[in-house]
């Protein structure tokens, strides 16, 4: 099983590059969740620097693509497709259609965040892509049942604050405008929401075209990692967003070595949805 590292830090890449690890770099023009890297030249420079450290690099294009951008998107995807990467992750099937049109030979991996929740959908889509990434809101049993029935073709989210929502509205800027307050919020990673009746602080990231909200806890399935490895899962995704370089490196190393010796103590770690079914009704919820 591979560790699929989402990061914008060269120090993290240097620290974690190894045989069982791949880096996933999010391109900045047609994606969300890239607070540090904002333009194509910076991205390409970052990519080439990372390539000197490890050949195990994938590119992610995770946005929902606007019709008016398709021509420019196609040109950019062609540029990316010529880079020496292992494959391309995408959330919008438009990317797959472009990759197919240009005869892309790397791996095409569908990662739509929430909607891949069952084996028939996974099997159907594996007929047209090389691998898929499951939804985060599955239990461990549900996920491993699917990975074991599609060996080495399925990946799961395994470390980090998990994405809870994506909006095309500038939610924070709209709000600040409504209360007549001017504050710099774009691409900041220190914004948090606290629901009035809860104690948790949810990270929220406002970017040029989207606003994304994340879990308060960090998914960290240390006790489950053996089971995940033996269930034919191709890889687990480890997302650094909102986590410092040092803490993230320690968390990934702990998962790799199945050891809690060097865990950062200040973080709120959890098992996410692994043991939480989300099929309650309004009535059951009362």
């Amino acid at each position: 099983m591979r560790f699929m590292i989402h990061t914008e830090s060269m120090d993290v890449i240097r620290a974690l590059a190894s045989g069982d690890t791949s880096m996933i770099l999010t391109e900045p023009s047609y994606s969300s969740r890239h607070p540090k890297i904002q333009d194509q030249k910076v991205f390409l420079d970052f990519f080439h620097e990372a390539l000197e450290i490890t050949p195990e690099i994938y590119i992610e294009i995770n946005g929902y693509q606007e019709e008016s951008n398709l021509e420019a998107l196609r040109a950019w995807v062609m540029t990316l497709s010529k880079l020496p990467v292992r494959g391309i992750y995408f959330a919008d099937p438009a990317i797959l259609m472009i990759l197919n049109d240009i005869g892309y030979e790397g791996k095409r991996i569908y990662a739509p965040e929430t909607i891949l929740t069952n084996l028939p959908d996974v099997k159907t889509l594996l007929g047209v892509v090389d691998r898929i990434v499951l939804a985060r809101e599955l239990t461990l049993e549900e996920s491993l049942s699917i990975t074991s029935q599609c060996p080495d073709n399925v990946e799961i989210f395994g470390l980090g604050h998990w994405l809870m929502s994506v909006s095309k509205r500038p939610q924070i800027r709209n709000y600040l405008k409504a209360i007549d307050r001017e504050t710099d919020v774009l691409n900041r990673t220190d914004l948090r929401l606290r629901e009035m009746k809860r104690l948790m602080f949810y990270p929220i990231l406002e970017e040029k075209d989207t606003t994304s909200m994340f879990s308060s806890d960090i998914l960290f399935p240390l006790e489950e990692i053996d089971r995940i490895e033996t269930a034919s899962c191709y890889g687990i995704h480890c997302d650094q967003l909102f986590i410092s370089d040092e803490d993230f490196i320690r968390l990934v190393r702990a998962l790799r070595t199945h050891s809690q010796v060097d865990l950062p103590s200040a973080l709120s770690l959890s098992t996410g949805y692994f043991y939480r079914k989300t099929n309650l009704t309004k009535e059951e919820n009362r």
Partner: protein
Amino acid sequence: MSRIELLAPAGDLERAKIAFDYGADAVYVGGKRFSLRSRASNFELEDIREAVHYGHTLKRKLYVTVNMLPHDDDLSGLEEYLSRLASLGVDAIIVASISIAVISKRLCPQMEVHLSTQLSITNHETMRFYKNFGVDRIVLARELDIESIRQVGKSKILPIEVFIHGGMCANYSGRCTLSNEMTLRDANRGGCAQSCRWLYELYRGKDLISDPTIPFTMSSKDLLVLEQIKDLMDAGVVSLKIEGRMKSAYYIAVIVRVYRTWIDAIESGNATDHLAQELKRELAQAQGRETFDGFLSHRPDHRDHLYQTKSDGVVQNYIGSIQVVEPNGSVLVEMRNNVKVGETLEVLTPEGLSQAFVLESMVSQEGIALSVANIPLAKIWMKVPFAVKPKTFIRKKGESL
């Protein structure tokens, strides 16, 4: 039938019939299984059969939502269910799961498959992808502006459907799990708790930057695009969809009748500014929230959210539905909101609004004379001074109507 489809929601058989009666070309309903909001659905298969029959008699269509994103445990009985829907004459199912689309086309090729807005389809390349799986129609994401819809429509890869009225998600539909996280209710399996509409504090680092008197929320105004209907028709849209399977019969009657009137006026060349303003005032009679035009004209800004819990411009004139009509002009009304003797009322019918009349008396079912009726769901006898039919709606006369 008009050249563009007006598609209305219904949460039970009565509301489906009302949607048809008030002018819907097609109605979409949810069954007890495999549907978002399925736990609130009152549609047994027999009800679906009757709704299909009622619609087909009027040369209209009935669609069934099979639009949950199922986990493996949810899938038992799916094939039998799809086959039953097809055997009942259901014209199309609305799905979000691609394997359900494929299974349905294999089992029941005559039943159309429409792909839900849950799949966030925003461009023609993505439509090209889904066309390979045999789907017949795409419900576009709500995040498109009118020019994007025009470009997607021009591609003619698949027929497109767009939302024109009703509640708006703050996030891309189908990509939001706020409800899962905060209440363990899966938004993609019909459990959405609308956590986006809750109130939050906003911090930057350790600093509170939200206003304690106006908390942060993602709560959206509702969609209302009456004035862009002609643009949508010209953009190649085949179906105009009203949101709201949980909405009341009165809401459905008002909204469907308004859009029916406006579409017919456009098609007959009688769509005037005066009529548009009149119809917008009529829409306001059934609105629960303030409205905006979604993403059609601009990316939503601060004016398009509901930061204060109190909504301006929302009227509550609806009194109740007429259940029984006696030959002497007495009508039995199932009450929803308060009314007093002496108030001026009117009746909403599929043909339009009645003349106004003053309520001169009310009597309870027990025969007691009332000056005020204020118990929801109570049944009250009233006198209406002209002929009316059951399944019409009585309300206080609006100021501008």
